[in-house]
């Protein structure tokens, strides 16, 4: 897993709970990297999993909810560092539809060894977008956070229904319905 996901995560934890929490979850985890992450490095997903579990234990917030918050946080990073992505899109649905074909293509340019989930567009009408998320990491709630933020960015809103196709969350259907004002 890309180091930026770790560095951003720890930054968010430090921002929200303080350096003690960062230290705590690292100490309580058995990490090969010893918690020293660089954005350009690559680390095992199990480390991320362990950190999330420890944070969940400590904060008594479910992993999914923590992932959702992290997704929201991560969007801000994307907006800050890669504004050109957003220039191309006029509405959230279009942007979401092109994750696979555009955004992930761009991500791979920067991080050629990135292991990315797939977002397959199953159905796309004017107001409804159905996408299927597939990833061995089962970080669907991270995705949900990003989706929510995308709508927020375009001053729009939508209801997003999350339907697990596989129980372990490695395959999830997002049913996104745009709310017309």
């Amino acid at each position, binding site marked *: 897993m890309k*180091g930026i996901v770790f*560095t951003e995560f720890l930054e968010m934890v430090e921002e929200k709970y303080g*350096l*003690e929490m*960062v*230290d705590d979850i*690292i*100490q309580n985890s058995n990490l090969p*990297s*010893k*918690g*020293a*992450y*660089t*954005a*350009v*490095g690559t680390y095992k997903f199990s480390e991320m999993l362990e950190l999330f579990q420890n944070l969940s234990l400590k904060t008594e917030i479910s992993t999914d909810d923590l992932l959702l918050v992290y997704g929201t946080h991560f969007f801000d990073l994307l907006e800050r560092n890669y504004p050109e992505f957003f*220039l*191309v*899109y*006029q*509405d959230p649905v*279009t942007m979401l539809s*092109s994750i696979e*074909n555009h955004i992930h293509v761009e991500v791979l340019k920067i991080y050629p060894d990135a292991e990315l989930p797939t977002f397959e567009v199953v159905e796309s009408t004017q107001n409804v977008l159905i996408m299927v998320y597939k990833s061995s990491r089962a970080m669907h709630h991270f995705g949900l956070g990003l989706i929510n933020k995308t709508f927020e960015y375009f001053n729009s809103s939508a209801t997003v229904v999350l339907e697990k196709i596989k129980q372990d969350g490695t395959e999830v259907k997002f049913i996104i319905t745009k709310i017309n004002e």
Partner: protein
Amino acid sequence: MSKNKIDILQRALKREKAARKEAEKILEVRSTELYKTNKKLEKLNADLESLLNRSDSQLQGVFENIVDAYVIMDLNFNVLKMNKSATEMLGFEDDKVDYNLAKMVLPGDYDRVSNSFQELLKNGVLKDFEIKIKNNKSKVIITHINASIIYDKGEPVAAQGILRDITISKENEIITEVINDIAQSILGTMDIYEISLNITKKIANYLKTDDCVIYSVNHTENQVEQIAASGDKISAFGDIVNRLKFDIGKGIVGTVAKTGRSMLIHDTSKDKRYIVDIARNYSELTVPIIIENKVIAVIDSEHPNKNHFTEVQLRTIENIARIIALKIKNAISLNEKERAQKRLLKSEERLRILISSLESGILLEDENRKIVLTNSKFCEMFHIPLLPEEMVGADCTDAAEQNKILFKNSDGFVKRIEAILLKKETVLGDELIMKSGKVLERDYIPLYNDDVYKGHLWSYKDVTLQKKYRKSLEAQKQKYSGIIANMNLGLLEVDKHDKILMCNQSFTKISGYSENELVGKYGSDVFLNGETLKILQDKNKMRIEGQSSSYEIDVTIKNGEKRTWLVSGAPNYNLNGEIIGSIGIHLDITSQKKLQLEKDNLVKVLKNKNNELQEYAQIVSHDLKSPLRNISALTAWIKEDNYTNLNEESLKHFDSLEQTLERMEALITGILRYSSINSESGQNELINLNHLLHDIIKTLHVPKHINIFVSSELPIIYGDKIKFNQLFQNLLNNAITHNDKENGKIEIGCETKNKYYLFYVRDNGVGIDKKYHHQIFKIFYYITKNKHSTGIGLSIVKKIIEIYGGRIWVESKLGKETVFYFTIKK
């Protein structure tokens, strides 16, 4: 800081250091990889290029030489390659540029571009994509793009496109649209303001400005005037704010109106002709609307920025101007017609008001004898109990019949109207007498329009008063004419040059000429000669100066007789007070003159005779006196010498002779005195009569038994002392002589009257019988044979009193008293 915290921080620091070292290691590895890849790529690129150069030379040629722009870009819009046309079109200096074409996309088009790009990625081709872009030189152009994806081993790697600049054709399309739009918007209406308003709106929209104004050009008034506008020039109520109106030739608009040539100004601050309307604008585009070589209107658009308008826009507006010209012309002429209509209505209204306030009764009938217009004066004259407005439309066919009872000659009134209406010719000043005594004057004026009878106008004027004035004026004139004609004085009116204008009957009588012979001639030529002419010229000069005068002048009348006229002349004025000549009254005084002359001569003769007589009397008296004295002396001598020889009777005769001689002397002395008394002799001075009387009494021999006294204060008068002395002396002597009483009394008194003094001398003597009262004042008359009485005394008294303007009379009681009264003028 707690131990725990320090531990945490130390651990965090340790992690950061480890992370940094890890990152550095990764970067080192990566950059080495990058270097190797780069090298490989360079080689590959070179291979590719040579390959491309070689294998695509044919294609290359096509691309580079095609007129249209050709661009290859990667999937992130970065330019990879472009031909010359593309370089030009996109505003680059050469084709070697590192440029992202996404920058040329205008913000409003991001969405469309991304959608189309997705379409391109999906389908591999994109056709007929039109987009407005801002090129590298910031020029906005409209491009038409056909694009396709370039694949490398089935993977899209780049996109290529042929771009065509369709700005102009697009512009033309917009122009066509604008023109169509305008044409449509003005199709249904004829109202100039509405049409202009529509046009200004569309043009402003097309020119991307707020300011578009249409001016109408009025060649008769040599002015342009705003008739429609858009934007800020329109108030909330839709009216034009600050509706400008100025002379043709003034400002940009005025210049265009004058020359008929469009103007495109990129910076108005550099053009002195520019007139600021509501705000200064820097760009101006002004186009005339011309029809039949005449500028009928001007379209004027402005923009706050410099260099806003383009040549293309100018041509578009010119096209629009050409298309709308006829429409505008028609609308303007229609508008003018409407304006004329309005003016006509206004003037009709004014006329209506004028007529309603006229002092004449007015009745306007149309050709069917229906009332078009009348006024309240008319209703009043004909006792019609309606308002003038209520009369409009009424039929006048029977009006004459209905109103005839108002007039004295009722049938005549009706017949006359019928006759007038039949003839339809102007009749002025018909006089109608109403039963009420009023006199009306009627005018009839038929109205024709293009020789077609359209009705007529009756006008009635109440001339009763004028009529009365005229009559009394006439009477007065007659009266004065009569006086002038019949007066005994000759009257002559001449102009400033003495030309005769008028003369009366008396003048013809005294001159012997008839009026016809005189009028038009010059008075001086007819009546005067050299010497008298001079007098007249002097008098005429005075006359012109406004002076009246009278003078005598000798004239020669028709029969050649010389006559003398007394002329009294006065200047004659016209209504403006200017002297226009003179009027002279002439009286023939020839006979009076003659009489006067005779009288004067007679007086002269009489005076001479009188003097002669006086001298004669004095001479006679004087000459008689000395022989008388001789006789007296001789008689005395004879008596003395023969006293003894004479008998008693002779002596008596001698005594009688002496007495007679004494009397004779007294008589002669009296005559001498009397004749010497006249008004001219003596010296006049102030005389105090009290002193005078006192002196007289002293010198008189007053017997002791007679008392003389002055009973009242006597006045001081102006006269000859000697005469008054004689007067009182004679009266007192008489009173003394004729007193027979033992106590004689003589009283002198005076009463002051209004214009004279009344004196009296009263005595208690013998009195005078009434039968002698008149005779006593006559000369040589005496009653008593007294040796002192000469009969001259009272005559002298009377003569003196008469010299001083008084008279004398006597009152007497015989044997008792006598009073002499006399008056002296103050």
